[in-house]
Every structure is written in structure tokens, then in C-alpha cells.
């Protein structure tokens, strides 16, 4: 089996509102998948169900062939997932190195821990800021720290929830390089509004609208898809990308 993650009929209602209907999705090992769609399409709810933050109303989540629908979030993370938050949520009062160490300590201890921390920080270019208090970092650096924490967990599935939100142009380029660098070692599920980033990075794109999967395909296919253009790239897309 080459699928790392399979969703089968996954859905969630909030007080009668169908936030996610019944999503089927297959994520192959090693791919970079972008999840796009207008605000309120159910993207964050869907990844919330994958990561275990939100309990599904129906359907199943299968990770590496194992049904994990009923597992709590921390158990899923230990199985090899990592999740970076849409809203920056580093531990502001702790040092940069301690933030990453918390992420790495589930996996390594002792001397290997310092190495893992240094490696993850070096990867995102924060190697010289290890001793700083995380809350003192600039916003863009805090986002990078989030990703360093994800890397330090050494996941097989890395879920990035709007990682470029609020980043400057130059920072976005740096982020894109980082993701390209990670692709191949880790499967990446990327929720992203910035269409340039999506088109440049994703191997496949899943488009959601109103809780359903509207389309799925390569960036070229999605670009040419009229339904997608009508629903997303045309109206809301400009606003989101702008």
C-alpha cells in the first residue's frame, strides 16, 4: 500500500451545520498536497479531524493502513504526524531551543536531543537564535520556529495550516525553498491561500467548497478546471491572494 493517509466519507456537523460533508481523500507517500478553497469551505475542520483535534461525525481516518479515527490527538502525533497551527502558537515564554526540544523529546533524549534541536533550527535558518526567548522573535521567525518544531518531530505526515499567512514576500520565498527541501523525506499536507505558493509547491491540489471536494488534480489540471475557476479562483481567489 502506497497511500500514507486515506479518508473515507469523513464528515463533521456543527449544531446542524454540515461543515464537512463526506470527504474521500488519498495521500500518497512523499507527495506535497495542497488543500485550497474559499473561507468556510471546511479545510481547517478537515485537517482538524485528520490530526485528532476535532472528532468526526462520520467516516474514517486511516494512517499507514491503520484506522486511527478513534485515537486521541497525541497518539496520532506519536504515530508520525505533526501539525503546525494557523495562528502562531509557539511557547512564547520559553527559549527557541526549548521550543524545539519539546517537540523533539518525544523521539530522542540526551546528546541526540541537542543535535536534533540544532539540526531543526539550522534547517529553517534560526540556528543563531537558539538562546532567544521565542516571544521576542519577529513574526516571520516565529512561523519558521513552528516549522522547526514540526521538523524536530520527524513526522511522516506534516500538516501545515496556512504557513505563509502574514509573511513578507522574501520570507515566503524562503518558506517555499524549505518545503521543496523537505519534500521527498516527508509527506506534506498544505492548507494555503496564496495561489502562487500552491502552484509552485504542490504536486497535487485538492479543492474544497462548502464541505465537499470540488476537484482534485495536478496544478495544471486545477488551473484549467472551470468549476474551480468559477467557485474559487475567480471570485474569492483574488481576494485571498491579494
Amino acid at each position, binding site marked *: 500500500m502506497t497511500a500514507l493517509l486515506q479518508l473515507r466519507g469523513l464528515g463533521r456537523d456543527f449544531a446542524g451545520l454540515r461543515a464537512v460533508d463526506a470527504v474521500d481523500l488519498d495521500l500518497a507517500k512523499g507527495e506535497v498536497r495542497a488543500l485550497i478553497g474559499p473561507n468556510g469551505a471546511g479545510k481547517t475542520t478537515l485537517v482538524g479531524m485528520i*490530526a485528532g*483535534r476535532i472528532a468526526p461525525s462520520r467516516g474514517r481516518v486511516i494512517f499507514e493502513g491503520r484506522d486511527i479515527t478513534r485515537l*486521541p*490527538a*497525541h*497518539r496520532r*502525533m*506519536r504515530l508520525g504526524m*505533526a*501539525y503546525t*497551527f494557523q495562528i502562531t*502558537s*509557539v*511557547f*512564547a*515564554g*520559553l527559549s527557541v531551543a*526549548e521550543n524545539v*526540544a*519539546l*517537540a523533539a*523529546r*518525544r523521539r530522542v*533524549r540526551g546528546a541526540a536531543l541537542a543535535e536534533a534541536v540544532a539540526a531543526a533550527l539550522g534547517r529553517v535558518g534560526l540556528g543563531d537564535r537558539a538562546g532567544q526567548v521565542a516571544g521576542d522573535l519577529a513574526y516571520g521567525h516565529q512561523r519558521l520556529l513552528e516549522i522547526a*518544531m514540526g521538523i524536530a*518531530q520527524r513526522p511522516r505526515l506534516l500538516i501545515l495550516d496556512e504557513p505563509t499567512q502574514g509573511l513578507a514576500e522574501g520570507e515566503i520565498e524562503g518558506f517555499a525553498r524549505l518545503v521543496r527541501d523537505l519534500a521527498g523525506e516527508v509527506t506534506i499536507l498544505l492548507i494555503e491561500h496564496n495561489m502562487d505558493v500552491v502552484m509552485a509547491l504542490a504536486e497535487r491540489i485538492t479543492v474544497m467548497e462548502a464541505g465537499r471536494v470540488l476537484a482534485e488534480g495536478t496544478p495544471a489540471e486545477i488551473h484549467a478546471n472551470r468549476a474551480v475557476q468559477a467557485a474559487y479562483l475567480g471570485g474569492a481567489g483574488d481576494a485571498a491572494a491579494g
Partner: protein
Amino acid sequence: MRALALHLGLLAGLLALHFVLPAYHHGNLARVMVLASYGVGYNLLFGYAGLLSLGHALFFAAGMYGAGLMVQHGGLGAAGAFVVGVVVAAGVAAALALLALRTVGVGFMIVTLMFAQAGYLAILHFSEITGGDEGFVLPQAGRMLGSVDLSTPDARYLAALALFSVCLLVSLALVRAPFGRVLVAIRENEERVRMLGYDTQATKWVAMVLSGAISGAAGAGYAILFGYVGASFAEAQYSILPLLWVLLGGAGTVLGPFIGALFMFYLIDLASGVTSAHMLIAGVALVVLTLFAPQGIMGEVRRRLWRGLP
């Protein structure tokens, strides 16, 4: 290294004071060390894990009554009674944690407060065993550690110092270990910790059991060293006191509970020598400190002088 030196230095200083303090302050300091041990237990849960309990008197009293009743009705000596007290307090904390940790924030405060009140009322209700309102004076047999009489000032001071040393060093080791780092991270952002793969519920449960056990050790120590077991120690006031000590001394600092307990003890002691409205003076001092050092005394030291202070 510096941190360890600081804490060992304090303990060495307290040992040196044993030989030089006049009797009155010698006795006071013994009491402060036992109370500070209680504060250390409270601080572990409140200062590090960020869980504000209003019911720690339940654990203090569980240790006190666990030890006291074993002396009174079970005929145990000090050592055996102390162990029973700690185990009972840890057990009570373990059971309460299962319920209370299902809630957060204000809910957690209310659940802990209610159970502590229930514990207090239970002590009054079973007055034939517990002595009810009046409590009971501990028989001399329960104050003997082997052939050492813990009711003498010298032995009492040294036993209080030993108790405080163990609590302080255990607390220091815990907060510097990965476990303590996770507690601080939970305080800062529990959801993020969960998404790093930690079972935060289990971690908080362990923290509450350790906190309860240390608080119970202080309660058992208090009963044995000062020879009295009473329902007043299970009252809400004894849940608030450790909170005040920790806030004054600095929540989330290892030395904070001792500094806070010492400060408050002498504040009330000095104020009551001046006026009968001594709580008024204590109250004003608390307000001033809260205004100008909201992180508490050691918190202020950490902010201004030494950022790495554990």
C-alpha cells in the same frame, strides 16, 4: 550549576541559622519551613502546570489526619505515620485529579474548592474518630523518631529542615527535568503540547498527585512536629494561604514558596505586635507587592537579574 548552588546555599544557610537564632525565631523558622514545604507542593501545580486549585487544604489535611490518626488509633511512631500521611494525601489527590482535571479554569477552581469543603465537613462529621472541631493533641509516641524526640526545639528544627530540603530539591529536580518543561509548556499552551504528541491529561494528573503528596508530607510533618491535628487546617483558609505564599514569593520559581511563606509569616507577626488590625497591614502589603512586583519577589528577581532562575 549556579541554580543548584543557590538552592543548596539556602539550605546551608538555614542549617547555620539553627546554631545562632534566638529561641523565638528558631521556633518560627521551623514552622515556616514546614509551611513552605506545603507551598512547594502547591507551586508545582499552580506555578508550573498553571492549574489554580482552591482545595489544597484537602491534601494538607489528608497528610495531617493520615499521620495523626495512625498515631492516635494505630499506635504508629513518627516515621510510619509520616509515610501513611503522604500515601493517603497522594491517594486523595489521585482520585480528585481524575474528576477535577475534566474541568479547566474556573471549573477546576470550583471542583477543588467543593471537594476540600466536603473533606472539611467530613472531618467534623466523623468527630468520634477525628476529634471534630477541637481536633486532638498527638500522643508523645507519635512524635518519636526512633529514640529522637521530635518535640524538642532542636530536633524539630532539624526535622523541619530535612522535610523542607527534600521537598525543595525534589521540586528543583522535577522542574529542571523534561517533565517540568512539559508542565511549563502546558501552562503556556496546552493544545500545542498535545499536538506535539504529549498526553497532557496524564501529565497533569501526575503533577497533581506529586503536588498532593508534597502538600500531604507538609501536613503530616506539621502534625508530628507541632503535635496537634485540627479541623482548622482543612478549612478554606488553608487552601488560600499557599496560593498567597506562592503569589508573593513568585509563582513558577522554586524558591518562591519559601520566600512568600517567610515574608507573610513575619509580616503578620510584626503587624500583630503593632496593632490588633494586623490583617489590615498584611492586606496593604499584599496590594503594594501585587502592584509593584506582580510576578512575586523571586519572579521579580528572575525578570531583572537572572532570567534562567528555575
